């Protein structure tokens, strides 16, 4: 996404399309959404990411109007939408099951919402044809939903929900039912369609790769709370907690104690007999405070000789996961801690430098990792 060209969340003047103010939703004793405040801006592709049961679907259903908040307000373009029923909202939703009407043809499915608006026949025809072209479904217009494939059904569901020009399109796990290859293709198609239609998209997913690919901003949720909202690169490079670091991608987590600041560097004591880790904190740590040091496997180098770097740790290769383009080495340090290091396989496998049981050096710079309080 055009991250640099437009980042309305950084502009204090920008008005959000959606504004959640201290929204809480309870089902009996269960709190699905817990005092949540968030802004979503125009033309954003906003991803709600989290494990199942984290409240992301409830959040979306409140936007669609199928649930009402127990406390707090939701504003759509400055207007409180709590009293507006789903059929009167300028919000459309693409359902996880697609929810295509089985008794209607593809054409009638797409036209369904337009007919409810009392549009003229001519305008409906034009709009449906436009949506069919956008989703490349022209030749299937007369078929029934059960006569087309899963990928085509997904596109019908998208076309139907976009037909009414919603201010906001909600996508509930839109690609969950597709196989991996089709899913990746469809992700790019979704981004393309979002740009073409200039609609604000809010997508719910539990697939972090999908969220990272399509979204302009990602909100990581857990237990009804938003843990972090940021652009995909910021979420990946500067997670604000071990939860986010662990949820997005692969990470090595080392727990230690702050042992003295030296300029902008912090020493972390973490295990008996191991050298201190030197990192660059972004927040204040007092001496003796617990620090979680998080470092991505691809930022850890693996070499035979001890290199000249701020942090060097010696260990033995325990396991090698060969993934084709990359290899992940599991290296056991003295004391039993296992660290993952990743290298790109830019040479042929036969010329690989290391194998099982080799003694190796792991190294990383003093800016490669993130220091987290929790």
């Amino acid at each position: 996404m055009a991250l640099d060209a437009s980042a309305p969340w950084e502009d204090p003047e920008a008005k959000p399309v959606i504004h959640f103010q201290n929204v809480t939703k309870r089902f009996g004793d269960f709190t699905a959404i817990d005092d949540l405040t968030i802004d979503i801006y125009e033309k954003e592709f906003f991803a709600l990411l989290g494990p199942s049961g984290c409240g992301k679907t409830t959040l979306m259903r409140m936007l669609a109007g199928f649930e009402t908040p127990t406390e707090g307000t939701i504003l759509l373009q400055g207007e409180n939408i709590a009293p507006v029923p789903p059929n009167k909202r300028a919000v459309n939703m693409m359902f996880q099951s697609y929810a295509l009407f089985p008794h209607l043809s593809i054409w009638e499915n797409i036209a369904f919402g337009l007919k409810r608006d009392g549009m003229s026949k001519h305008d409906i025809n034009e709009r449906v044809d436009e949506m069919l072209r956008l989703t490349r479904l022209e030749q299937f217009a007369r078929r029934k939903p059960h006569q087309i494939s899963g990928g085509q059904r997904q596109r019908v569901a998208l076309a139907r929900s976009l037909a009414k020009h919603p201010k906001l399109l909600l996508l509930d796990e839109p690609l969950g039912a597709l196989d991996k290859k089709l899913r990746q293709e469809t992700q790019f198609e979704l981004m393309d369609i979002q740009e073409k239609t200039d609609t604000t998209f809010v997508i719910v997913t539990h697939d972090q790769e999908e969220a990272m690919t399509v979204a302009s901003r990602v909100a990581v949720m857990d237990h009804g709370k938003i843990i972090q909202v940021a652009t995909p690169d910021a979420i990946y490079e500067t997670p604000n907690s071990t939860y986010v670091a662990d949820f997005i991608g692969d990470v090595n987590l080392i727990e230690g104690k702050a042992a003295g600041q030296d300029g902008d560097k912090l020493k972390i004591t973490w295990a008996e007999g191991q050298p201190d880790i030197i990192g660059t904190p972004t927040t204040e740590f007092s001496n003796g405070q617990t620090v979680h040091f998080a470092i991505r496997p691809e930022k850890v180098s693996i070499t035979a000789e001890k290199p000249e770097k701020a942090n060097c740790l010696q260990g033995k290769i325990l396991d090698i996961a060969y993934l084709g383009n990359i290899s992940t080495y599991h290296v056991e340090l003295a004391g039993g801690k296992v660290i993952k290091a990743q290298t790109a396989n830019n040479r042929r496998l036969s010329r690989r430098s290391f194998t099982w049981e080799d003694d190796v050096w792991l190294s990383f710079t003093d800016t490669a990792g993130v220091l987290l309080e929790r």
Partner: protein
Amino acid sequence: MKRFSWFNATSLTLGFAFLYMPMVILVIYSFNSSKLVTVWAGFSTKWYGELLQNDAFLDAAWVTIKVAVTSSTFATVLGTMAAIVLVRAGRFYGRTLFSGMIYAPLVMPEVITGLSLLLLFIGIGLDRGVLTIVLAHTTFSMCYVSVVVSSRLVSFDQSLEEAALDLGCSPFQAFRLVTLPIIAPAVISGWLLAFTLSLDDLVIAAFTAGPSATTLPMKIWSSVRLGVSPEINALSTIMIAIVATGVIAASLISKRSAVRQRAEEQAAERVEA
């Protein structure tokens, strides 16, 4: 494939003989030219012709059809509404009591249903006739409709209705344009069930009918008490034919559409674009 053993073949024959022998005999004797029911005197269709001349039977048939069509229609509307409430409304105060009360008439002895309705009609001073039979049949057949429809609604994907609301339907429009067309086969078979139940009910009709209205089963019952006539056999054969045709047609239609749908789904997956 396992061979058909003698034991299997014998049990099958005995079972079917037990089920269908009486009906087969009735059908055969309806083509008997003799006036005496138990003596075979050659093939003839004259009793069918005489049946068409018998005004008492024709009147009763007309009453029966009127009652069956109206009562099954009312029962379908009420039963469908009850099914929707039971399946959709989730937990509300008194839900278990409500669902228990809907299904109770299924196991209630017909004599008791008939008697209590009779007492009610006398109590409120309603003259017994076609109207009272319709009301009574609606009462006892709506629970069958609600069983059939609610079993369909349980497997109904509720996001279809949500999608309809999301696309601008009022709740009633969503029901009319999406839910009803999809559950229509269940509603229709509920109607057919109510229709056949009303068609062959004797006990409840006997309690709630007045001198002005006699249904066909009541007419058959009262004439048989004066002796079985070949005309009755002919009439019963016609009723068997109507019911059998309806049942076979309904099952063929539903089976064929299921087979076609599966074939089309498989074809669609094969040409995955």
